[in-house]
């Protein structure tokens, strides 16, 4: 690259940071508001005395922990289940492809295109019949299936990068399929498998169509908890901000950690 002139470089830095600031501002403001007291929170001003009072109140709410626990259980459950189903499938497609592998992959992708709203009615009715409404198991099943195509695709693109020779050497060393996957493939693709898991966690954690429609209280995750602040009697800005900050922070860290690999997963390997 040709070295650019100083004013130009300063200009670019200012522009870049300005863009980052504008995009991040609502989250920054959320953080600031969460540190205000409730009366200060309704006043959009920068002068206030920081307090953790709202966090204390949110965390003290008996139901908060239940919502948070639901989010954790459902996200982890959906991710573990999706990985368990997807790892064998991606292994076979990457290392023992057949004539049908290509069309299978594309078909899996196409199931992702079915808009959730299009099948809301039957899923709702089936869940009602099976007693799965407002259960963690119900949401875990939905999230597993919702993310399975992405998880398979992402693992497939990571697995494809492992040289066949290494797995074949393992076979010659006496490794059956299980040992081959466990001792060789997974250790070799650990960063990829981890970021696949993180993406699944992020998508489960933030999902807000099925969680709003299929749960009411017992299995409702944080998305639903936050939504409950939308009612007029729930307008407590500081508490809303504190609850939101707590709900967003962990997943934001996951997202930052895996941003590079996410691109691949979100675009089904079309952009690397």
């Amino acid at each position, binding site marked *: 690259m040709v070295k650019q002139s100083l004013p130009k470089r300063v200009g670019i830095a200012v522009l870049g940071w300005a863009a980052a600031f504008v995009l991040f501002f609502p989250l920054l403001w959320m953080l600031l508001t969460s540190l205000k007291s409730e009366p200060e929170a309704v006043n959009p001003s920068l002068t206030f005395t920081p307090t953790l009072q709202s966090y204390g109140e949110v965390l003290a709410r008996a139901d908060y922990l239940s919502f948070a626990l639901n989010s954790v259980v459902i996200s982890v459950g959906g991710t573990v289940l999706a990985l368990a189903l997807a790892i064998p499938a991606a292994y076979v497609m990457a290392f023992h492809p057949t004539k049908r592998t290509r069309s299978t992959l594309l078909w899996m992708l196409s199931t992702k295109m079915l808009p959730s709203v299009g099948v809301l009615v039957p899923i709702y009715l089936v869940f009602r019949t099976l007693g799965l409404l407002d259960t963690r198991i119900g949401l875990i099943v939905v999230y597993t299936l919702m993310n399975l195509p992405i998880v398979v695709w992402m693992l497939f693109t990571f697995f494809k990068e492992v040289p066949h020779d290494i797995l074949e050497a393992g076979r*010659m*060393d006496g490794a059956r399929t299980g040992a081959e996957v466990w001792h060789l493939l997974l250790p070799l693709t650990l960063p990829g498998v981890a970021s696949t898991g993180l993406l699944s966690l992020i998508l489960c954690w933030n999902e807000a169509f099925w969680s709003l429609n299929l749960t009411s209280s017992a299995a409702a995750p944080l998305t639903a908890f936050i939504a409950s602040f939308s009612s007029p009697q729930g307008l407590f800005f500081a508490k809303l901000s504190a609850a939101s900050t707590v709900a967003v922070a962990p997943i934001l860290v996951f997202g930052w950690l895996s941003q590079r690999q996410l691109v691949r997963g979100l675009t089904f390997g079309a952009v690397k």
Partner: protein
Amino acid sequence: MATLRLRGLRKSYGDAEIIKGVDLDIADREFAVFVGPSGCGKSTLLRMIAGLEEITVGDLFIDGQRINEVGPADRGLAMVFQSYALYPHMSVRDNMAFALKLAGASKAERAAKVAEASRILQLDAYLDRKPKDLSGGQRQRVAIGRAIVRHPKIFLFDEPLSNLDAALRGQMRIELARLHRDLNATMIYVTHDQVEAMTMADKIVVLNAGRIEQVGSPLELYHHPANLFVAGFIGSPRMNLLPVRATGPDPAGVRVALPGGGEVVVPVDGTRAAPGATVTLGIRPEALKPGTDGALAGEVSHVERLGGLTLAHVTVAGGATVVAQIEGSAPVRTGETIRLTIDPGATHLFDGDGRALPHRSRHPLAA
């Protein structure tokens, strides 16, 4: 230690047949080399023996047991890959111990076997390194060590030296030959390099387009090539091949007319070379020497001086070029006309189908 028997082996991918019927026996403790040009199917054949490629048709026996349906993990063979295929996330020690660990060997046994292999291969100092911290030659030795620790029935090598530089390759050739003697093991070695084949093999299997062209000891192939393909493939520089006409029978063999008017008697059985038939004359480059009474004359078109010897490219009447391998100090110069004498014992004759006419006597080293 084991014997290997291949019967009617075929391999196809869809409509494309890669291996077109291979029958072969490899004896216990034999060092067999599969050699042939790119795409001849030698690696595929090795991988079929390994169990990494499915056998489409035919039978594969190890020690008399048919093992077509046995997976690579259960065949008891070890393979050294061209890329070495070391496990990048494991130390040298763990790379070598992996097979033993899978087989359920005790810690003490694993340690003992790894120690033995690393002593043989002089890897003791590197046992705790990862493959990425090793040189090419060291990686190569780890790959071999990984095979040694298992005491496999048969060692399989897939072009193991092709990623090394020339000096290291020469050294590893000697080490592998020594290893074969010390371990007393059956080995199958795939290469496209006929020097590796000639220097290491007990038995060379020349493959071309999915078929075996000839099987034999290195000198058997060199002195008694079965056909034009083997004649051209084995030996460096290549055998000179000249289209000639058989002029008549001779008590010593078949008399052929050389370009430019000379004649030579090739000591082969002439039943398939009627007078007047067009045949191909093969002359090893070392069988051509400058001499004033030489039967072949031509203009020196190019001289390659290798120091110890000289390769003279000579254009003979009719436009064909022959290569003569002569003394390093021979005073030939580009542009001059020279005569070349032919040692009839190092000449070969091939019929119109490219098959060799059998020599009347066997070479003493190729019995």
